[in-house]
């Protein structure tokens, strides 16, 4: 079943310019200049039920704008989309009941009240059946392991604890689609991992579709089978994470450890990232790996050798750069 389908989805913004200086301020009392910015251009995508899709891109690439259009908060300037069979920006009540949007930096819970009270209010707003509500709260608090936090005022919780409760609140009404905007921002590694585990478990048991944006590659690597990359408002990649690595990961990182100092000059024809004492780190193209190994085999007292893919951050960085140079 297709959950999200967009067709040339585009959004332009009008930005007003305020001239600098005191005289400028006076001038802007009477007229405003503006320019149009293309935040999102011709996005085409199709997401199926049960997928966890990662949405990557630098700041200002158009991720949040896209999410807002998909959740019906923004009107597109062009193109169309169907989400769960509805046109999102018409905002029918049934549509609003069928999905959830969670933003990492914003809170929907009442600050001074325990989360259980916010849940209660949520139940009324979403007209959740009391039996189902009780069952969902029970299940979710168990998955997220937060039963001891439900009765503490939200303002006394840590960010990680709060995010878990935010997620629970957003899942209480059994949404079929979960849109997450930077859900792990500001969380420490332990809290991030917990979040990953919970989201994964929930996705497996309920077949909920998840689209998440993130800055952290860890989120995407552990959770998402498929990723979308957006840059300058345009979609530049849509496919498997491994595919991205294959396409752009045509290089390998090699680390060689010697018992004594690294021999002089031996690796000078390869790109050397670092030489410290007995360790050398190289970046070479895939095809050059055999010749590096050939060189190593002639050296004495090699303690260890490892060959790795470059980190995904680097791969995506390259993707952005190549995309930008193509458009310029």
């Amino acid at each position: 079943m297709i959950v999200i389908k967009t067709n040339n989805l585009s959004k332009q913004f009008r930005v007003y310019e305020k001239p600098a200086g005191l005289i400028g301020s006076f001038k802007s009392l009477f007229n405003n200049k503006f320019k149009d910015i293309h935040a999102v251009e011709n996005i085409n995508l199709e997401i199926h039920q049960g997928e966890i899709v990662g949405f990557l891109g630098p700041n200002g690439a158009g991720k949040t704008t896209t999410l807002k259009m998909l959740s019906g908060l923004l009107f597109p300037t062009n193109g169309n989309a169907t989400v769960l069979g509805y046109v999102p920006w018409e905002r029918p009540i049934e549509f609003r009941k069928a999905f959830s949007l969670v933003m990492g930096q914003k809170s929907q819970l009442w600050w001074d009240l325990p989360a259980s009270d916010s849940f209660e209010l949520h139940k009324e707003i979403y007209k959740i059946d009391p039996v189902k509500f009780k069952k969902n709260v029970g299940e979710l608090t168990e998955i997220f392991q937060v039963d001891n936090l439900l009765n503490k005022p939200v303002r006394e919780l840590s960010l990680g604890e709060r995010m878990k409760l935010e997620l629970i609140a957003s899942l209480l009404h059994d949404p079929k689609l979960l849109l997450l905007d930077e859900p792990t921002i500001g969380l420490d590694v332990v809290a991030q991992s917990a979040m990953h585990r919970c989201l994964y478990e929930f996705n497996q048991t309920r077949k909920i579709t998840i689209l998440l944006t993130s800055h952290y590659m860890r989120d995407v690597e552990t959770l998402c089978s498929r990723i979308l990359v957006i840059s300058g408002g345009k979609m530049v990649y849509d496919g498997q994470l491994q595919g991205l690595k294959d396409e752009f990961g045509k290089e390998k990182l090699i680390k060689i450890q010697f018992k004594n100092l690294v021999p002089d000059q031996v690796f000078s024809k390869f790109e050397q990232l670092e030489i410290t004492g007995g360790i050398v780190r190289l970046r070479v193209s895939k095809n050059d790996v055999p010749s590096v190994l050939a060189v190593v085999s002639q050296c004495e007292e090699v303690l260890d050798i490892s060959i790795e893919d470059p980190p995904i951050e680097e791969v995506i960085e390259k993707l952005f750069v190549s995309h930008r140079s193509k458009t310029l």
Partner: protein
Amino acid sequence: MLRHLRLMFCFAKFSLLGELAFRSNFLLKILVELIWLGILLTFFKTIFGKSSNVAGWNEHEFLFFVGAYYALEGFVETFFLENCVEFSELVRSGNLDFCLLKPIDPQFFITLRRVDWSTAPKILLGFIMISFAMYEIGKPLELWKVPLFLILFLCGCSLAYSFLLLLTSLSVWMIRNQSLMEVWWLFTNLMRYPRQIYDSEWALPIRMVFGFIIPALLAVSIPVEFAVKEINIEFTLFLFVIAIVYFQLSRMFFNYSLKYYRSASS
């Protein structure tokens, strides 16, 4: 309808729980309201110490007016004012998005989601003043007038709410809540005294603008006149109709502003 009542009950309940988390703060806020009442009554006593009537209203009638005004102000402050002031903050921070995602009417949710319990005693005190003034007048309110007075009073509240909503909607374009408060204060200023004080010849433009076009002068005056002075049928009907018209108008404008927000924000 029933669902909305249930929701309002929830909003009220959780607001109260939230307020009680800071009990001393809550009590101080109530104290402020009591001080205000004291100021209002002292001012009132001072004026009537100097003169036996003001613009054709004697002391007891005027006290009735002050009570009705105080209750109306309390009503708007308890249910709407804080929410409306917070609206510009919602726009600025982008938290308005969450309000729009909820599967309920945005206007209902945004303007009612918090109840300011610290001003609720004003409604009660206002009605106590009204009852006391009634007792002083010595002529009990006819029974048939009571429900009609309450309806007219609610029309006044609705009118005030509609003005507030119109102003609130403007926050989408000019983001700052300070001027919202200033304009709201201006409205309360126009509602605070009987409309007869504007009967001077040179105040005619004010009487026309704020008596007919933006009828702030009528919000408290007409219900109170209905109860304790001669009934002016034309104005009474006018208040009833204009309250409905303004409610619809403000609702349309609010939805328009949300639509603008959804096409312009980033």
